[in-house]
């Protein structure tokens, strides 16, 4: 029988994994469609990093799952976790599942998320769970690149032409409603925080806000401030978009269970 605390930890790891996988998948939709070749390569490189980070988290979640419920007939793997869970079991935040929209919207989504992930991994390096600390330490080097690249693009577009500025304003209107959730602890985060395995989001919030404010000022974009925030993704209540993502992502394993190549 699995203990309550192991359950929370597995869910905590899955939420980190799902964020990375779903944003990685979203970004990968740009493959072959980027505005210029170099940026097409950049966004798909970021996808690869995110999916790699997701894999590390899924592998760890699978290991803990198998250790706590030894069931020889069904062993969890990174693949069963990514391909065989249903929409309500996914714990990614609403921000990462939002459609790509135009380049401005993709850039803003990446920036808002990378800024969060940067400080998250910085803190997670100090987790008293060794595996989580190691994944964070490894991933942080990659996220530093993501944050720099997306920050520069937010500035380039915000402080660019009137057209690019307007598109960034539209992107803010579209996405700001999903940012609050990043910094509000879900039910499984609180116990992970209390055992010092997870990251205390109250430490993260001012850091994230300061970073986003700095970049918005540089980009001549207004600070959106307090607005209504839509939450739920981290608890499994998703927008309709995730269903479409999973339909594409999971199709092969659903149609041909266990298929390999």
């Amino acid at each position, binding site marked *: 029988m699995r203990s309550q605390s192991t359950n929370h930890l597995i869910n905590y790891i899955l939420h980190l994994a799902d964020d990375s996988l779903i944003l990685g998948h979203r970004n990968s939709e740009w493959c072959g469609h980027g505005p210029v070749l170099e940026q097409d*390569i950049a966004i798909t490189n970021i996808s690869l990093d995110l999916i790699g980070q997701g*894999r590390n988290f899924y592998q760890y979640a699978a290991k803990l799952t198998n250790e706590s419920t030894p069931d020889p007939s069904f062993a969890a793997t990174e693949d069963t976790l990514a391909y065989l869970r249903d929409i309500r079991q996914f714990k990614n935040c609403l921000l990462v599942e939002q459609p790509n929209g135009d380049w401005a919207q993709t850039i803003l989504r990446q920036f808002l998320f990378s800024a969060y992930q940067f400080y998250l991994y910085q803190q997670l390096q100090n987790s008293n769970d060794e595996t989580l600390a190691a994944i964070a330490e490894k991933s942080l080097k990659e996220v*530093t*690149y993501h944050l*720099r690249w997306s920050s520069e693009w937010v500035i380039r577009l915000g402080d660019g032409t009137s057209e690019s500025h307007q598109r960034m304003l539209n992107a803010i209107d579209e996405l700001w409603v999903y940012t609050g959730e990043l910094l509000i602890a879900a039910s499984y985060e609180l116990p992970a925080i209390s055992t010092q395995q997870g990251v205390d989001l109250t430490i993260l919030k001012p850091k994230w806000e300061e970073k986003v404010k700095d970049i918005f000022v540089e980009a001549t974009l207004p600070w959106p401030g307090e607005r209504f925030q839509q939450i739920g993704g981290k608890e499994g209540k998703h927008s309709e978009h995730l269903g479409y993502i999973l339909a594409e992502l999971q199709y092969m394993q659903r149609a041909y269970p266990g298929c390999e190549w």
Partner: protein
Amino acid sequence: MITREIDKKTIYSYLEQVQDPEVPALNVIDMGIVRDVLLHDDGCLEIIITPTYSGCPAMDVISMNIRILLSTIGFKKIEITQVLSPPWTTDWMSEEGKRKLRNYGIAPPNPKQQVCSDKLFAPNEAVQCPHCDSWHTHRVSEFGSTPCKSLYVCDDCREPFDYFKCH
């Protein structure tokens, strides 16, 4: 009965035969991917490796190739363990590896890391063209054909080239 004493050095020399599938000019020792080799009392040979990037698609192939090589040599029990900490850095690439990279047409990572910060619009790292040795080059994109490279172009010989970026 003949017993064979195998030391770490011998294993490392075997592993030099395993190429990086993404950068075939380099082997896994040059890359600094092999972190340790352990010979356990029960005869198990454990190879500890670390990925360059989290999403590096070469890791599965590398693990498989190490396994195939060592079983061909005659090892029966082989375990390949992946570790993430401390995270891989270009500092671990051997001098020999850097020389091979340059000959292959890829600029090797600079010894002193210059751009691994979150500073924006940082000046381009000075990178020497692997074709004509000019330092008169500029960066086209910090993301390249694989996660570990960025794209540069030489302003003298006009050739584009990959730079194995600092990490």
